[in-house]
């Protein structure tokens, strides 16, 4: 790893193509011209085979047709040169240094590290089984998997106390499990069974458990944000010490609810940590085609709160950032916005083959698998043995198999219950 300042000069070739004229840094030199986007709307990042998609933000050619040349100076950290499958060279450009993650790794004891590993593995296994059960017709409806993004939920929720609240999205299996829900009741909900966490009424997108302080998945994009403000208000009113961790995707930023909530949260210094899971696609629409400011953490600035971007494929980086933000919220200093750059390994939902992404892009991200990354780190630092990690994998597999069995054997909800939970019954 080395760091450098690179200069990039782009020339517009047509409405959706650009030529890289010049790229130079201390450690790499790539003379142009190189055609950046062979296919419409492909990002320069893809064409260059750059490994870290956050640099995509810096390299994306501006939409304005008036601009012909763009020169950009970026600080890049060379992660690896000549990565196989990544097209020659790769670099990453994170706003934040990685020292926080490194510090977290050093200060955590073995049990904590292994708990993170277990939690991420549990979610991965759960999602793999979910996909299998969906393919077999055991699970129906709309179902959105979290595989690839585990480091965000696990890192963030590990940084909270049990009594802190979590608000989530429709891609919420991971958050719900990380908050402590039993895989049995989550799987049963996906099966629509009476034993499910929402008694089979809600399904995949509407998990909820007030005892765990998991305040729900929301199937309307941005729908959970105002509720997080309300939870925060209640905490302030009752003078309680909890904080709210509110997850949402990049697709939620254009919703009015996002802006209304951040304004109020900042104005009233509500104890909320806003975590934007930026996986680059709102269903099939690239973030650049939906949001004017592609560096999503910068939306913190107009709302006068701290904003940081973290590596959402690094559980420790997420953990470090959320620890800081939660402490701030708890001390009465108000909300923060954390953008966790991440990637979903599957399509938007079970019916989405993700044809809008190149297989190469997917491979590049799969190399950054957050579970494998933590595994490498743990083994490299000799914090646990390979055997220990394998045992965790096996244990987790058994837990998920048991969850599937439980869901399969559980009864359907009684039809007499249909009218039952519409109103509070005295």
């Amino acid at each position, binding site marked *: 790893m080395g760091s450098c300042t690179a200069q990039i000069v782009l020339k517009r070739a047509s409405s959706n193509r650009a030529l890289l004229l010049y790229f130079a840094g201390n450690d790499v030199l790539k003379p142009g011209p190189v055609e950046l986007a062979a296919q419409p*709307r492909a990002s320069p990042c893809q064409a260059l085979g750059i490994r870290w998609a956050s640099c995509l933000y810096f390299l994306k050619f501006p939409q304005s047709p008036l601009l012909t040349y763009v020169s950009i100076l970026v600080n890049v950290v060379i992660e690896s040169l000549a990565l196989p499958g990544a097209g020659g060279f790769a670099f990453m450009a994170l706003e934040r240094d990685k020292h926080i993650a490194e510090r977290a790794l050093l200060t955590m004891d073995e049990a904590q590290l292994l708990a993170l590993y277990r939690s991420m593995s549990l979610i991965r296994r759960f999602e793999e089984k979910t996909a299998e059960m969906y393919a077999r017709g055991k699970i*129906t*409806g*709309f179902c959105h998997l979290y595989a690839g993004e585990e480091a965000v939920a696990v890192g963030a929720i590990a940084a909270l106390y049990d009594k802190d609240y979590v608000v989530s999205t429709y891609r919420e299996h991971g958050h719900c499990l990380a908050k402590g829900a039993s895989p049995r009741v989550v799987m049963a*909900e996906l099966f*629509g*069974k*009476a034993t499910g966490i*929402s008694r*089979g*009424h*809600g*399904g*995949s*997108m*509407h998990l909820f458990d007030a005892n765990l302080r998991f305040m729900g998945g929301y*199937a*309307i*994009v*941005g729908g959970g944000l105002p509720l997080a403000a309300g939870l925060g208000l209640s905490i302030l009113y009752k003078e309680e010490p909890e904080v709210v961790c509110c997850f949402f995707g990049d*697709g*939620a*930023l*254009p*919703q*009015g609810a996002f802006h209304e909530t951040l304004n109020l949260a900042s104005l009233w210094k509500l104890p909320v940590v806003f975590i934007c899971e930026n996986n680059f696609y*709102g*269903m*099939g*629409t690239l973030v650049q*085609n*939906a*949001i004017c400011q592609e560096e999503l953490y910068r939306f913190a600035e107009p709302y006068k709160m701290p904003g940081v971007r973290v590596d959402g494929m690094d559980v420790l980086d997420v953990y470090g950032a959320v620890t800081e933000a939660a402490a701030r919220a708890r001390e009465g200093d108000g909300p923060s916005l954390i953008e966790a750059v991440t990637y979903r390994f599957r399509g938007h939902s079970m019916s989405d083959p993700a044809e*809008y992404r190149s297989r190469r892009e997917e491979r590049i991200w799969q190399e950054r698998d957050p579970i494998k990354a933590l595994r490498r780190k743990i083994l490299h630092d000799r914090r646990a043995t390979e055997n220990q990690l394998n045992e965790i994998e096996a244990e987790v597999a058994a837990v998920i198999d048991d969850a599937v069995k439980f869901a399969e054997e559980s009864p*359907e*909800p009684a*039809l007499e*219950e*249909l*009218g039952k939970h*519409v109103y509070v019954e005295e």
Partner: protein
Amino acid sequence: MEVTYLTAINQALHEEMRRDESVFIMGEDVAELGGAFKVTEGLLDAFGENRVIDMPISESLIVGAGIGAAILGMRPVVEMQFSDFIACAFDQIVNTAATLRYRHGGRAACPLVIRSPSGAGVHGALFHSQNPEAWFTRVPGLKVVAPATPYDAKGLLKSAIRDGNPVLYFEHKRLYRSIKEDLPEGDFTVPIGVAELRQSGKDLSIITYGGTLNQCLDAARIVEKEDGLSVEVLDLRTLLPLDREAILATARKTGKVLIVHEDRVTGGIGGEVAAIIAENAFDSLDAPIRRVGAADTHLAFSPPMEEFILPNSNKIVEAIRSLAAY
């Protein structure tokens, strides 16, 4: 050529965009992805990104921007990815679009079409299954249509696009690929505000629309075969304005009326239809008006629960028999 309900909608969009350059499409994932259900597939290639526009997830903005363009004479066809999400755009529809012409003394118009996939039966749970048409059928200034066949899907969408008013076009997502029909070559439209008699009969009338039409026709076939009953089936097609003449004609003809819709019974359009009949054709009635619709609860995820909540041909057969026996 035999086409699906979904293809019929797609054809209407293609043809209207070719016919009139002021027609354009905006919505979430409508361009590159071709829509969540592939309804707008191929339009980006055919008409380019200036006329088929991917929007951020901002329903209120999508409708509001559509209204702005419509004021200037454009004919936007905007899509709500699921009709449930239309709630996020409610203010723009009922306050801004519906009143636009009236509040400017007739000096402006809002030729806007809002398409949205509605309906249950695909285990979409609470926010991907609703039938929100009745939220809008009491708002003057709007028109609301709900086609039940590929022919009507195409013809009504063309009429909606050519209409000078904001039209809400509810397409039933369960019908997309499940029904097919031979469509005539060339341009045709289906007039807004006109119901269609799907089947003539003398013993009783079913009044329905959208996702339940085929269930009603199935039920009518069953009771004809098993009970020798002759059932008339009227497809409303347009929900605002209602075709009062057709409603009253069938009520007067058979004297017994069953209203069927997938929307909930309470507050559904069936109540308005029943009131029209009770007020104007009471003397012709031989039995109380009956309604079959979704149970007055939320659309649960659990598949057996969902099935239990929704109307189906068995429930309709039962209702026909009890009404016939009255």
